[in-house]
């Protein structure tokens, strides 16, 4: 099933679409009128999701954000309720819109990598990777095997710490104090590990166009495997304990449920879609991820989304260990040293780049003229993640709110750009 993720012109003629395995551009006219609602969402993506309202006795708009202890980012939820049950949700992330894509225009492709990272700091590596792939596709640049493997390590590290963060938030919302503290310790350990090996707690400033922006010590990566395995063992112990806690499971079970049909109609990807039983992951179609185990779950609720994330943590740890070993072998064989720094890329062209970020498909379309960006479009997973929140939250009660929202892993910074 083809799903729209972006509109590249004002007339809705050029659409960015995907089918779960690749991303391409198609004509809007050939897509039919049935997708108008989806296109309105994409066209309104600087502001948020609005226009839904419920009226009735005692129903009011409870505004949650942009300054509240419960929503850490500057955005606002409009919850229509009569006091307990949530009847309808609108989401306003215009507070967070920074116009980063616009600020990238006329920049050199190298300078713009850093701006792509600034769209969403906790998806910084995924943004830099999708952007770099788009530029490399536009300019026909080959990427060395070692750089590709380093990118796999960066992307999987980002997946692990993001998933642990989400599970920590869920545990915290359920007042699982001891577990939350231990998960926070693992989360902090992962950020320190990122800093030790890639020079940034959030993996910024490392990935570049066809090369890394910093030199890397391949020998040290073997220590990374050891440390990440240690943190994974600690997480496994905690996760088994969490599954034994009826209190915790009860809060997640049947909360913010989404079935596969609805998830596909919304166009949401990543752990949210896989938690509805759909085996879709862009890494499955990447030859560098040979033998990937794709974690899925069936229920489509907050618990299923947590299960998928936990399984993906274990999967990513294995990928990192294997890839670090392969990198070491490549390094010892003396072929293809890791390139770092910037090279002159002064070509002209357009291209698409994408990757499986921690919360789903992240795609870039770029147009380049003589090495400078003429247009940039970032299709981010959080936009559709928030749409999934608005579709799944009605019917739940107020105290379900954090379990519902956090389990989707959607961020205002990512959606608002």
């Amino acid at each position, binding site marked *: 099933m083809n799903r729209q993720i972006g509109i590249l012109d004002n007339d809705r003629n050029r659409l960015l679409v995907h089918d779960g395995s690749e991303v391409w551009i198609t004509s809007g006219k050939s897509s039919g009128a049935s997708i108008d609602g989806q296109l309105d969402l994409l066209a309104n993506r600087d502001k948020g999701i609005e226009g839904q309202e419920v009226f009735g006795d005692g129903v009011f708009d409870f505004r949650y954000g942009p300054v509240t202890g419960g929503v850490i*980012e500057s955005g606002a939820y409009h919850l229509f309720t009569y006091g307990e049950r949530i009847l309808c949700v609108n989401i306003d992330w215009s507070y967070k819109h920074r116009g980063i894509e616009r*600020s990238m225009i006329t920049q050199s492709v190298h300078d713009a990598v850093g701006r792509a990272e600034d769209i969403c700091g906790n998806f910084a590596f995924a943004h830099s990777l999708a952007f770099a792939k788009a530029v490399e596709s536009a300019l026909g640049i080959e990427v060395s095997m070692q750089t590709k493997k380093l990118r796999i390590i960066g992307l999987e590290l980002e997946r692990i710490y993001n998933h642990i963060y989400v599970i920590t938030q869920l545990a915290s919302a359920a007042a699982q104090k001891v577990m939350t503290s231990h998960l926070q310790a693992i989360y902090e350990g992962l950020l320190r590990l990122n800093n030790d090996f890639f020079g940034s707690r*959030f993996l910024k400033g490392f990935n570049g166009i066809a090369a890394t922006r910093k030199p890397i010590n391949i020998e040290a990566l073997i220590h990374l495997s050891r440390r990440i395995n240690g943190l994974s063992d600690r997480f496994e112990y905690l996760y088994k304990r969490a599954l034994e806690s009826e209190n915790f499971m009860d809060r997640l079970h049947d909360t913010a449920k989404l079935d596969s049909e609805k998830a596909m109609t919304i166009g949401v990807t990543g752990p949210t879609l896989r938690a509805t039983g759909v085996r879709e992951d862009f890494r499955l179609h990447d030859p560098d991820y040979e033998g990937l185990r794709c974690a899925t779950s069936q229920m489509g609720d907050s618990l299923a989304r947590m299960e998928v994330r936990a399984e993906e943590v274990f999967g990513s740890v294995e990928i990192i260990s294997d890839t670090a070993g392969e990198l070491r072998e490549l390094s010892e064989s003396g072929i293809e040293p890791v390139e770092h720094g910037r090279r002159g890329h002064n070509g002209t062209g357009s291209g698409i780049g994408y990757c499986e970020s921690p919360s789903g498909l992240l795609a870039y379309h770029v147009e380049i003229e003589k090495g400078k960006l003429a247009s940039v479009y970032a299709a981010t997973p959080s936009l559709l993640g928030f749409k999934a929140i608005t579709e799944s939250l009605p019917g739940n009660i107020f105290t379900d709110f954090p379990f519902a929202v956090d389990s989707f892993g959607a961020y205002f910074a990512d959606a608002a750009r």
Partner: protein
Amino acid sequence: MKWWPVWGLTKRLTERKPYATEQTVETKIKIFRKSLHIYPIDVGNSNDLNLDIRALQAPQYNIHRFGIFFADVPRHADVLLVLGRPTEKMVPVLTETVNQMPEPFSIVVVENEDPTRRKSQTGVGIKSLNLPNVVAHLTNYREPGELIAVLLKIKGGTN
């Protein structure tokens, strides 16, 4: 499996290193020696600052031992942590939040944008807002230890 809290106690996760910073902290308030309540406000950062501030709650830092606590609302806070460079739409929200702070209060501005990318920065410069009681402005923030050091200076003590 050990009883859950016992398993936790055996881990000894809190680190013993000193937190130091060369950042100047301009405060004359002396009443926060025993406890300091902080409220972080995101004014448009790329979310890594928000997640890094969350990491302050990790047992490695154990900020409660210094008497530092997170407040749920600005009205209960002693220090407002302004995270990032404000978007235009967040400027009035930030101003109103500052108005809601109880006296005496301090503001710490935390930014982490790469200084080489200043030309392409979006949003409003924090200095142009003339916020009151800004006691520290961290322009190239790197990790939570720096922030703890600043908060300890505001408290008027060191660890």
